[in-house]
């Protein structure tokens, strides 16, 4: 926890990269929906598709979730975090 990896919006994660969700800035209602689909702080995500524009797809807790770019910009993550699963 001490070494602080840079926190960046989910939209900056490239296809195939992994990241860990750190925090949301999306407002209660949206955050609730994200949480019910598995996106909570600490959740490892993998970017399935991100073409640099338009919506993107992430895999989180075994589910593929499509997110609008606006929504994804409000999810802050930390790059990496693949040590747990592979």
């Amino acid at each position, binding site marked *: 926890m001490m070494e602080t990896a840079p926190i960046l919006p989910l939209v900056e994660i490239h296809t195939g990269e992994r990241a860990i969700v750190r925090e*949301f800035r*999306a407002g*209660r*209602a*949206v*955050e*609730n*929906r*994200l*949480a*019910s*689909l*598995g996106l*909570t*702080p*600490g*959740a490892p995500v993998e970017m*399935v*598709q991100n*073409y640099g*524009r*338009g*919506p993107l*797809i992430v895999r989180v*807790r*075994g*589910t*593929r*979730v*499509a*997110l*609008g770019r*606006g*929504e994804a910009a409000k999810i802050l993550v930390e790059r990496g975090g693949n040590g747990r*699963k*592979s």
Partner: protein
Amino acid sequence: MAESHDLSARDVELQVGAGVPLIALAGQPNMGKSTLFNLLTGLNQHVGNWPGKTVERREGHFDLNGRRLRLVDLPGTYSLTANSPEEVVAREFIVRERPQVVVAVVSAANLERSLYLVAELLSLSAQVVVALNMMDVAAQEGIVVQAEVLAAALGVPVVPLVASKAQGVRKLLEVVQAVLDGQVNFKPALPEVRADHREVLKRIEALVAEYVPALYPVDWVALKLFEGDAEVTRMMKSELPPEKWSAVHVLLREHDDAFLAVASGRYEWIGRMVRAAVTQPKMGQIGLTERLDRWAAHPIWGLFILAGMLGLVFWLTFTLATPLQDFMDARMIAPFAEWMSGLLAEAPFWLRGMLVDGAIGGVGSVLTFLPVLVIFFAVFALLEDVGYMARAAYVMDNLMHLMGLHGKSFLPLFLGFGCNVPAIMGTRVIDSWPARLLTILIAPLVPCTARMVVVTFIAPIFFGANALWVSWGLVLVTLSLLVSSGALLNLVLFKGQRSAFIMEMPLYHIPNARTIGLLVWQRSISFVQKAGTAILGMSLAVWVLSFLPNGDLNTSFLAQFGKALEPVGRLMGFDWRLTVALITSFPAKENAIATLGVLFGNSPEAGLAEALAATFSTASALSFLVVTMLFIPCMATVAVIKQETHSWRWTFLSIAMFLGLSLAGGTLVYRLAGLFGLG
């Protein structure tokens, strides 16, 4: 069995009312919940709406060991927090109706996420039986789930299932029976809030405990307050004395991120369950879904695939539905009308006219709608069931942003090119109500085939070789109006808010014929029942107006009405006959041509074109075409707008909007055309 399919919800309740055990089916979307529901109830089901909500309510019954059970299919939701009407409906049902058993459908292929809802159901102290569905899909992906281990960890029964192949259903029913007989001992392991928030939650619980309405479990209410659930917050604010509420409020404000602690706590709990019961495959294995999505969800190839799919839909419609429609018209409705008119040869001529032209004409227009509708419903249901719909929404998301909508609105709108009726019924796939309402309001701006019939008849008369360009121009203008009115309505009605695009991309799977068949059947029946009666009534009314007082359309009330409206019509370059033609296009758009035929004493096949060309200027004709594109949608469409919005207010708003739009559009085009010397 089959005889009860037309029972209304009230009849079902009367028939199987009090004392009949009530079972609820809960589950997240894409878990195969509907498949299980259809499997259990067959045709003994009724589709309606939850009181005061635009959420579909499906209820049915089935017999188990000689005892009748009521089964209610709760809306598919990811959680039970008051984010959407579906979620409120689902949990209020569990709290108020207290079903004896809640069968929670989860996917073995996706246990981690699907147990989230189970966690919520258990906190509601429901008697949950977990239906562990999609065991086959899980096996395919190399996932092994041990049902007994999961049952032991959860403390509730777990039954493995392959609903699409009807495997495991007998066992599930045995367990349901055992629960009803009180033979199952529920010791559910409840999820807890993340450790750092437990203390605060206890304090909130203590503060509200004695004020919670009897229906609700106290710890659940405290948890929902903690999660910032809007409905529960409102309820407790009015239940608690002000000083208690402000104490609670301070605690909640200090911990406004608490809902994340609650959600994380649930996932910690899920993690324990999954670790115990599930063996995951080695990572790096790429499934079928992923491989297909490289194409179907690609920003460019995805659009090509979508275009291909949609082309296929229209090809199917034109090769299957149109001949069927013609066949019904020529071989069923026309001979029936003839037979009827022979039968009534002795009857007063007004009766014959009313029955043959009014009633049969009206019913006929409903019936000839059906082939197109059935095909659209079927293709739509198929694409949805396979999982393609989510991909179409995904690739269209960018374009739909222009209107403040997101991807999910695209397919319903596209269906509108065939017919606006399935377009408006198809908006049920849109999960947020404002987005759905907006889509319903603008959907009639998609030019349907019936309107194109009028355009393709009139345009060549006045524009000759340029008719094709004029028709394309009309379509383009209408579609750009769709985009701009979408953007405008979004700004005015919803203050520019766009609902968030957050959507699961389900696994592709083999479609289930039963699910699709039942969906098509239910939607068609619901159209015939609701829209059909409205259309019949309206066609009768229009017929009566065109007949009274002395049996001649030229001097009828309708004509007098048209003449009275002539000053308005003149703004758009219409005479009374064009005005009357426009009014009679309300029962069905293509009526406009038939009416002109009657008014000019010519059949559309011979002579009408010449008569029209001799009577009207090009400017009037162009204005008439524009007005036809923008006028009040046809009766069937208005009827489904009412049916889907459950509101006269929105229905009338829609009518007023199109009335205004067509008046303004017609006037503008007529004046402009005059300036360009087409007058």
